[in-house]
């Protein structure tokens, strides 16, 4: 799909007002725990990252690693019984301690969200136009009708949806068009930060590539910061500046995509990349075992039971987040800091035999 070229005026209009060069989103030691009938699931357990204006951070991990929970936690969209703490600063303002009213004001206008299944977020009884009018009115009730339409049409045009479809109903669109519609709807309020939760998973290969391209253009053209949650490392490589690899509620490694994928430091990152089947795959690799139960995670490094490099220290002591050689952060005893490993800690860890019984 050739992307429509944007006239400069339009483009300027859609620039989120980014003040300063500091991070748009700055998360520090964020935890999100869910209540269940068995106890608390530590879905996100101490996660820190920064997101600069116009930057796309890929949050990658397998199902159940807490990546979606983190995305929803940042937006304040969590089910009853969930608790979160830590610190999430949106342009210096702490999002987690904000009053519900302020949080609601921020959502949509400053924080946008794109979901995996667009149809679940679009009301089948409302025309596209009504969706846009509602979204804009929520946050800018005084905007004249003409302005509203104008803005909606601009957002649609940027996503390659012709103005002839403005009065259509959601079901009249194809799957890829609906996802564009969702993105347009998220963009129309010009948020500075968008969480996209598996936005291409339900789409066909070619349409997926189109959406990836749109997301790519997004950061370049609008300086919108994007947290792209996906299980597909290929998508991360193609659409993201930086990547954060999540395992069992922790970000185990983060850094520039090129650095991390070219020279993964954490054994999980390496094994995840190795087990991904791509066009260049010549042999099959996989990670034995399955992620730990997050109600009662193992002590020390959570990947230790499956890790090919596990040492004695890994099973007893939490790894420390350190600067990654080549930029970024990693938490793994095999990388360092060596001076903090107790005597005998570097001995090979005796791991239990991982049978299919523990397979993911």
């Amino acid at each position, binding site marked *: 799909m050739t992307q429509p070229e944007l006239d400069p005026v339009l483009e300027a209009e859609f620039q989120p007002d980014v003040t300063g060069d500091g991070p748009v989103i700055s998360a520090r030691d964020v935890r999100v725990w869910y209540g*269940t009938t068995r*106890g*608390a699931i530590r879905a996100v357990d101490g996660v820190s990252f920064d997101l600069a204006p116009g930057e796309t951070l890929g949050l990658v991990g397998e199902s159940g690693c807490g990546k979606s929970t983190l995305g929803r936690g940042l937006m304040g969209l969590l089910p009853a019984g969930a608790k979160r*703490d830590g610190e999430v600063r949106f342009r210096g303002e702490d999002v987690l301690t904000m009053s519900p009213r302020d949080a609601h004001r921020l959502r949509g206008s400053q924080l946008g969200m794109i979901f995996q299944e667009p149809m679940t977020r679009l009301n089948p009884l409302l025309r596209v136009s009504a969706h846009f009018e509602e979204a804009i009115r929520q946050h800018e009730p005084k905007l004249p009708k003409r302005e509203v339409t104008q803005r909606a049409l601009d957002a649609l045009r940027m996503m390659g949806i012709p103005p002839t479809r403005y009065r259509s109903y959601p079901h009249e669109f194809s799957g890829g068009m609906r996802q564009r519609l969702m993105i347009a709807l998220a963009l129309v309020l010009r948020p500075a930060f968008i969480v996209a939760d598996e936005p291409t998973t339900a789409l066909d290969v070619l349409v997926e590539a189109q959406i990836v391209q749109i997301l790519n253009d997004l950061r370049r053209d609008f300086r919108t910061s994007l947290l792209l949650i996906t299980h597909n490392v290929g998508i991360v490589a193609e659409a993201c500046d930086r990547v954060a690899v999540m395992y069992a509620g922790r970000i185990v490694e983060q850094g520039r995509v090129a650095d991390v994928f070219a020279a993964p430091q954490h054994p999980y990152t390496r094994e995840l990349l190795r087990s991904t089947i791509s066009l260049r795959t010549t042999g099959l690799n996989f990670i034995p075992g399955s992620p730990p139960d997050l109600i009662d995670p193992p002590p020390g490094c959570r990947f230790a039971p499956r890790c090919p490099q596990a040492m004695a220290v890994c099973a007893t002591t939490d790894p420390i987040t350190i600067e990654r050689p080549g930029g970024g952060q990693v938490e793994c005893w095999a990388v360092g800091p060596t001076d903090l490993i107790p005597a005998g800690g570097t001995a090979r860890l005796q791991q239990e035999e991982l049978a299919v019984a523990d397979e993911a």
Partner: protein
Amino acid sequence: MAALRRVLRALATPFTQTAGLGRWMLVIGLVITGIFVLLAIFAPWIAPYGFAQASADGVDFPKAGAPSGEHWFGTDRLLFDVMSRTIWGARTAIEVVILSILICVVIGVPLGLVSGYYGGWLDRVLLLVMDALFAFPSFLLAIVFSFLLTDLFGGSVLAVAMSLSAIYIPQYYRVVRNTTVSAKEATYVEAARAIGAKDGVIMRRYLFGNVIQSVPVIGTLNAADAILTLAGLGFLGLGIQSTDAAEWGHDLNRALADAGAGVWWTGLYPGLAIVLLVTGLTLVGEGLNETLNPTLRKRRLLPVVMTTREDR
């Protein structure tokens, strides 16, 4: 063994996984219903006299005697002990309701399965018949059926249960048919076809277990309704005769004349019994609905207590 465990687990689920009002409704409903079931089972031992007993040790009971140490709930005009009749009435009510639910399940569930699974003209014809039955005023239908069936079987518990079934079968049919229609599209049904399973096998082993789950809810809710209908029939003098069994509706009918004469006890106790049992069953039904129906279910979540960071 596995089946037993499955049943036990299914029975325990409503308690272990629910919270709030639904749980309380279920518990209170079960207690009330349980008391009536116990009364029904042990009526011969609990009730001081027989349901059609007018004398003890050769001495006639007083006629419409007020509650006393001898007769806690008093006696009625036919000299029967009201307390005994109320307790024996529980037995009649439970018998009729269980029998009629059994008939409903045995007829309604297979019909719904077959109708939903095959679709086509069979489905349409069955739907039409069932909808027609359903559209009839249910009480009128019960009266008609009980006339017909009492002629055939006499005023027995079976006849009344069958006439009650006639008005509830369409509900079971409808629910089972609709769940079958959606369940037969599931991949596991296609997988069953792919291993070469015949239609009968698919219905019995793949669909039945999954569509039957909504039956307990309609069962208990219908049971409450059935108690009322049974009492209604008895009140009109249809169905079970007072010498065959004690029946609350019938007793209420006879108590009608007493009310003007200041004899309140003959009407109060059977009436109270109806109200209590219907309430109990309704609570069980609604409680089950809230716990079994995933859209209504509130899971009992353990509160999240975040440990301090040093503990990690």
